[in-house]
């Protein structure tokens, strides 16, 4: 029974001889995946650290205080918060219905061949750098508004106190409109995705009962995706609140309680950008950082809330499917 060569081994190789490449990639990728978390924590820490002197000095009174004075070293963000609120809310009021309409147009109403080109153009609107929008705003739109639109508004809407005032090249109105231009593409593309996700069965069921296409949209599609639309609105809100560059270019940077939509005002983000060149006192620097802290908190809240809402929606639709 001589054998010429040893029989080939059919035993399975021992487990667990990891290849270097596999381990290397795994750890490298893990390190990369951890990085966003690390960065977020660092951002929160660093910005708070910079703001600390101001937080210590003013505490929550910063939110209600009303001055911004480097000479007396007194800082309060109330008017800035109001300015942020007014510009963002007005922008949303115009942008959200418009964006949902555009989403419906792209998902339902438009002929198929139009969908890609129009969709692309809406995306391009989102791609315009904010500084370019701001340049256009301050040199083209602002003067146009001041010369042709604001006088008309004062004449016809001036009985409402907020819509009374004097035309101005820079002010709340151009800021609201610029923010609208920025928010529309964001909410429009989210809306479009939502509407495209409505099951065809549901739409056909409504049509088979004799609804017009609009009635089907209104009574079946919109309720079906309403939560997602809310989430999209919150994301748009976050964007509007955080925009510094374009706003600071057109809003006029005046610290005053917004009483007229035409008058210059300021927002939190805009003030930080406006003082980038440096501020005299340490406390003023810290107060700018305090504004950044507030912005960070607002963006975290709106973002996480939006994600929770869409997460809950996805689970609900899957659970009942």
């Amino acid at each position, binding site marked *: 029974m001589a054998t010429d060569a040893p029989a080939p081994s059919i035993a399975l190789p021992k487990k667990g001889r990891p290849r270097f490449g596999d381990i*290397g990639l795994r750890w490298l990728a893990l390190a990369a*995946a951890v990085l966003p978390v690390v960065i977020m924590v660092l951002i929160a820490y660093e910005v708070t650290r910079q703001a600390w002197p101001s937080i210590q000095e003013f505490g929550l009174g910063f939110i209600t205080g009303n001055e911004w004075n480097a000479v007396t070293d007194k800082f309060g963000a109330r008017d800035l918060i109001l300015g942020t609120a007014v510009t963002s809310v007005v922008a949303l009021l115009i942008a959200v219905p418009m964006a949902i309409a555009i989403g419906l147009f792209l998902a339902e109403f438009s002929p198929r061949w139009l969908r890609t080109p129009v969709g692309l153009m809406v995306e391009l609107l989102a791609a315009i750098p904010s500084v370019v929008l701001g340049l256009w705003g301050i040199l083209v739109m602002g003067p146009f508004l001041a010369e042709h639109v604001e006088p008309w508004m004062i004449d016809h809407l001036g009985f409402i106190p907020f819509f009374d005032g004097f035309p101005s090249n820079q002010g709340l109105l151009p800021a609201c409109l610029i923010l609208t231009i920025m928010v529309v593409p964001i909410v429009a593309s989210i809306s479009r995705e939502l509407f495209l996700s409505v099951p065809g069965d549901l739409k056909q069921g409504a049509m088979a009962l004799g609804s017009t296409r609009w009635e089907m949209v209104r009574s079946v599609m919109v309720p079906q995706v309403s939560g997602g639309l809310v989430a999209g609105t919150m994301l748009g809100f976050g964007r509007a609140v955080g925009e510094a560059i374009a706003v600071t270019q057109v809003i006029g940077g005046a610290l005053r309680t917004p009483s007229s939509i035409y008058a210059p005002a300021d927002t939190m983000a805009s003030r930080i950008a406006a003082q980038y060149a440096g501020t005299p006192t340490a406390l003023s620097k810290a107060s700018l950082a305090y504004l950044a802290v507030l912005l960070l908190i607002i963006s975290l809240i709106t973002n996480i809330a939006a994600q929770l809402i869409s997460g809950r929606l996805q689970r609900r639709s899957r659970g009942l499917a």
Partner: protein
Amino acid sequence: MSAQAGRNPLAASTSRSRRRKLWGRLMEGLASFAALVAIAVLLIVIASVAKRGLPAINLDLFTQVTAAFSFGAGQEGGLKNAIIGTLIMTGLATLMAVPVGVLIAIFDTEFAPPKVSMAIRMTLNVLAGVPTIVIGVFVFGLLVVGRGQSAWAAAFALAIIILPVIARATEEVLLLVPSHLREGSMALGATRARTVMTVILPSAVGGLITATIVGIARAAGETAPILFTSSVFANAVVTDPSQPMASLPFAIFTNSESPSQHDQQVAWAAALVLMTVVLIGSIAARLLSVRTRRQIEQTR
């Protein structure tokens, strides 16, 4: 059987049904109008920038430099240092963000259990939502205080901003790669790493390029982070990244508030250059992504 003539009960006969029909048409018309307005705004902005920027484009613009303190001060000067600065900063930011973004996407699609995957995605979304001005303040405190401004700091800030964009775009493409490619490779005995490097990434290359283009377009246009990290620069072309540099967005920003005609012209010219880059990049990315999608679908 031929159709009867006479009053057709199937026509929209009652006033109610006529009203419903009309109302439906009205609402659809409004939606079309909204889309029209959006397109109009886009075209108006592009037209404005083109109209005012084109006349200002001349050779001087590309051969002359402008010092930081001269931007906005109405002095003569061009965009040479700004263009070079944007190229360098954007390039560095892309170099930093793309490998990390791709690795994150790989981890998320290949290695991460579902709950971790969700956490990663959530974090990326949160990071994407942080206002760019806050990121500017962050990097200012981290890298500029005590050290001085630098292009590295600006690039770092830009990298943070585009990281979620690149990670998400890459992830989308990786998810498109059909699982039979993965399984085939692993069945042949290749390790995970090998599979990723030699099978998955190559088939997703188009998507990676798209993601990179999108990242570049975004990074080129961001102003807020530059305000704090690279806003005081020399009156010359600077190529050393440890120094602050001029940049197109910054040039636009400071010149936009200047009353000087010359400054405004420079701003429009810079805006034209920037917008051309951004628009071409976005369109190219879109076309490329459609083509990549089709290619990957064919391998199914």
